[in-house]
């Protein structure tokens, strides 16, 4: 099996394990739709900034350990695992998320304020992605940056900025005056 496939499977496996743990942890939690939505909304507010930090630190590790072709298989596995995580996070940003929950809970947890916060997060993500693209463009005048590295940086900064901003706004929204 190729290193790329191993990475893809590892990424998918990690996503499934996290989904299973989340589902198992919420087994005895409140059952009414409103209570469930409130519980999930609070958990999301806590998780988003943490996810952004984990995602960014993963990128820092990736770039600091770039071997320049010595461990090509390991690099391919890491890249494909990162790709899976990026796609899952992008899906989370672009959709209502909580894919394993009933539709009425998903609709409620994605109410007007949440959509506004998410859109603001997406706006920040776009601006950060564009900013990092410009920075890379300038960098290529002085150093060599491969296409893959450029895409990696743009995608990582865009997603992390969107997650972080959305998380901050959600936490602020939950805070009582």
């Amino acid at each position, binding site marked *: 099996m190729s290193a790329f496939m191993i990475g893809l499977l590892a990424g998918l496996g990690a996503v499934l394990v996290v989904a299973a743990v989340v589902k198992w942890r919420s087994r005895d939690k409140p059952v009414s739709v409103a209570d469930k939505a409130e519980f999930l909304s609070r958990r999301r507010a806590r998780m988003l900034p943490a996810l952004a930090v984990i995602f960014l630190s993963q990128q820092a590790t990736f770039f600091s350990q770039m071997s320049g072709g010595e461990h090509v298989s390991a690099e391919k596995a890491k890249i494909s695992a990162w790709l899976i995580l990026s796609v899952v996070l992008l899906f989370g940003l672009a959709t209502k998320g909580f894919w394993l929950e009933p539709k009425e809970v998903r609709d*409620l947890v994605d109410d007007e304020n949440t959509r506004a916060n998410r859109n603001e997060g997406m706006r920040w993500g776009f601006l950060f992605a564009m900013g990092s693209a410009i920075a890379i463009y300038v960098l290529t005048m002085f150093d060599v940056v491969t296409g893959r590295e450029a895409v990696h940086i743009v995608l990582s900064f865009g997603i992390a900025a969107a997650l972080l901003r959305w998380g901050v706004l*959600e936490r602020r929204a939950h805070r009582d005056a």
Partner: protein
Amino acid sequence: MPERLANRLKERRTELGLTQAELAERVGVTRKTVNTVENGVFTPSATLAIKLAQALDLSVEQLFWIER
């Protein structure tokens, strides 16, 4: 001077003896959204403003006004 959408949501909700969660359930949003509207952090859509006014037995103009 910037304009701000002020409201008497909290005052009216308390008058009627409702919690944020109960009001949220009546209008079909989460407690967080009611909280942000009450605190003036979030400007609701016309639809939500009308739903809130109906749930609190007031007109939209009685519930919300522009503060300069």
